[in-house]
């Protein structure tokens, strides 16, 4: 009974393994079941088995071991990977991380190389993650095992192989697998954030990329002009953004793994592109007919059509996850407020009723919730990030009293937001949980704006 419920997520995992990017993954010590495994409800059943109602699930991730250390370097690298994984798991916020001092207690009671489930249970662990690293040539091999402590069962085992320089991304991949297997939770450890920054030249802004945790910040553009408002393609392999490189702001595309870019929509001025969830369309604002209106273009720049027609400013579109509805900012009542409309421009309705000035809407990609975030000026204060829930019709405020907070964008799982704030001085990029907790600062240089959180890069087609 227990075993049956345990195997289902594993089957799903093995099926998913075929699709995974960047790393070769093999089933480890476990027998390989058929490749035609049904895509079931992933690990949800197993998650229920280890959960004690009302109690948080506690996870223990002791430092990974180096299988055959030649010197100091390998054990240090193994510990560094464990740190990344622990940080990723903590960020998700679905488990309580068992304090490391308990690890030593549990390990000291166990025979070397063996797992003593009773020892781990006695220190309160529900889940134990065990990892062994090995380096051969320029290859890094990591074996990871996930144990359900009270069931005394190794429920997940996988061997990962990557180039030795990719250990950090490999650790992120392991963390996402752990979250998926143990909690049916879609992690964001392999996601990245695009943003605009003037850190290189004061009077220019370039598009930059960074990992979701702020690591590996690097430029995408380097043209010395203004480059703003990036938007991710749903496959995480391209960005649409506006650039002033030829004078007036126009829409450009950057293909991240092909080293090429192209101008998408050139004539007149265009702003604030938003890539549709199916990747087929790009919504944007333009003054091509006079006022700033919302337009739709096919992702190759063709078939430009107009969606709004009003004397007021219409700008900053965002797509609902169903791909049929858009929200945007309009000042047609005299103040910027958030509106929604169908993809053909019909069925216009107002979304925001609180706040004197609302802009930069971001529709949550979550399929289980229906909510939208935006920057809101309440009374005469600076901006705060708020989230409007379409079901309850309630609006909750996520930031309060700490600088001006702008340009929210959702993590692909709808559980976190990235935004800018000047709470520490100049405009910097921060992330927080969707309830406003766990605020982390990701950038510290220059002035940074319009961060956008993207999906992990898909495999090339």
């Amino acid at each position, binding site marked *: 009974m227990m075993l049956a419920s345990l195997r289902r997520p594993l089957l799903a995992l093995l099926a998913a393994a075929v699709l995974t990017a960047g790393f070769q993954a093999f089933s480890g010590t476990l027998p390989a079941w058929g490749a035609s495994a049904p895509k079931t409800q992933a690990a949800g059943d197993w998650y229920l088995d280890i959960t004690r109602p009302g109690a948080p699930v506690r996870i223990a991730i002791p430092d990974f071991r180096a299988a055959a250390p030649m010197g100091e370097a390998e054990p240090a690298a193994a510990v560094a990977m464990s740190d990344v994984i622990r940080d990723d798991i903590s960020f998700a916020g679905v488990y309580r991380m068992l304090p490391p001092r308990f690890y030593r207690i549990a390990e000291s009671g166990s025979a070397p190389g063996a797992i003593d489930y009773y020892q781990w249970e006695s220190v309160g662990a529900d889940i134990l993650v065990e990892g062994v690293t090995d380096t051969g040539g320029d290859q890094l091999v990591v074996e990871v095992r996930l144990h359900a402590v009270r069931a005394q069962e190794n429920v997940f085992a996988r061997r990962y192989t990557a180039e030795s320089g990719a250990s950090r991304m490999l650790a992120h991949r392991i963390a996402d697998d752990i979250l998926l297997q143990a909690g049916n939770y879609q992690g964001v450890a392999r996601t990245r954030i695009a943003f605009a920054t003037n850190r290189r030249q004061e009077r220019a802004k370039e598009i930059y990329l960074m990992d979701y945790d702020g690591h590996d910040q690097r430029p995408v553009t380097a043209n010395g002009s203004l480059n703003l408002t990036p938007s991710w393609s749903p496959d995480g392999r391209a960005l649409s953004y506006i650039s002033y490189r030829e004078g007036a*702001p126009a829409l450009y595309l950057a293909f991240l793994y092909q080293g090429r870019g192209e101008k998408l929509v050139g004539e007149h001025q265009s702003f604030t592109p938003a890539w549709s969830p199916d990747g087929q369309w790009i919504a944007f604002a333009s003054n091509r007919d006079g006022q700033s209106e919302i337009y739709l273009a096919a992702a190759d720049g063709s078939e430009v059509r107009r969606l709004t027609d009003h004397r007021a*400013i219409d700008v900053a579109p965002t797509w609902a996850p169903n791909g049929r509805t858009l929200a945007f900012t309009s000042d047609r009542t005299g103040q910027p407020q958030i509106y929604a409309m169908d993809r053909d421009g019909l069925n216009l309705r107002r979304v925001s009723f609180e706040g004197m000035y609302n802009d930069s809407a971001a529709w949550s990609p979550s399929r289980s919730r229906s909510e939208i975030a935006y920057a809101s000026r309440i009374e005469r204060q600076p901006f705060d990030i708020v989230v409007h829930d379409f079901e309850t019709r309630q609006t909750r405020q996520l930031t309060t009293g700490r600088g001006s907070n702008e340009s929210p964008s959702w993590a692909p799982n709808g559980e976190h937001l990235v935004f800018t704030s000047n709470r520490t001085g100049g405009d910097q990029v921060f992330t927080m949980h969707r309830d406003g907790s766990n605020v982390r600062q990701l950038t510290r240089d220059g002035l940074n704006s319009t961060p956008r959180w993207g999906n992990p890069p898909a495999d090339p087609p």
Partner: protein
Amino acid sequence: MKTSTTIARPTSVLRSLSFPVRGVAAVLLLAALVAGGCSSVNREPATARLPETPGAGTGTAGSSTAGSTGATTPERASGGLTEEEILAMPPGGGVSSEAIDPLTMDLADLNASGALRDVLFNFDSADLDGAARAILEANAAWLLRYPTVEILVEGHCDERGTVEYNLALGEERARSARDYLASLGVASDRMRTITYGKEFPLDPAHDEEAWRINRRAHLEIVAR
């Protein structure tokens, strides 16, 4: 009328000069204005070239003995001038000047000369108030006088709005200024608009005065 609506680029040039030079510069400015009859105040660009001229001017005037430099040059004290000749000298100590044709200046100097003035806006507004219209009317008069000049009308916002909305608002401001210039007879094909949102504040400070001058339409001369 609020004089504070100008972005006083010419006066800031004056301010950067040392004090005595500044006085001479002001005199020269007045002289240029008188010489030019009722010509527009926008002849100020001459100030950019001023630092070379004052030595020549004051040296010939008899009143220069007030300074020690004049007194130590005896041949100049006798000078070869008769009293009649000295008395016959025109006011201004023999200084003559002519207005510089703005169109002979290079673009950077021309734009720095303050020939065209910025228009300011209220918060979250692209509407032109009386002061804004008056400035645009002066700008239009200048543009009609120099019909070869082409301009880029830049719309800017203060930092208190959001990045995205300000891109659209800056465009509204630029278009608002351009449309009024067009209504005053400036040909539309001489003007292009662009928005910079809140990306390029004129004053990077975070106070009311900075915000006030940052909410602007700037007329940049791009061809002449």
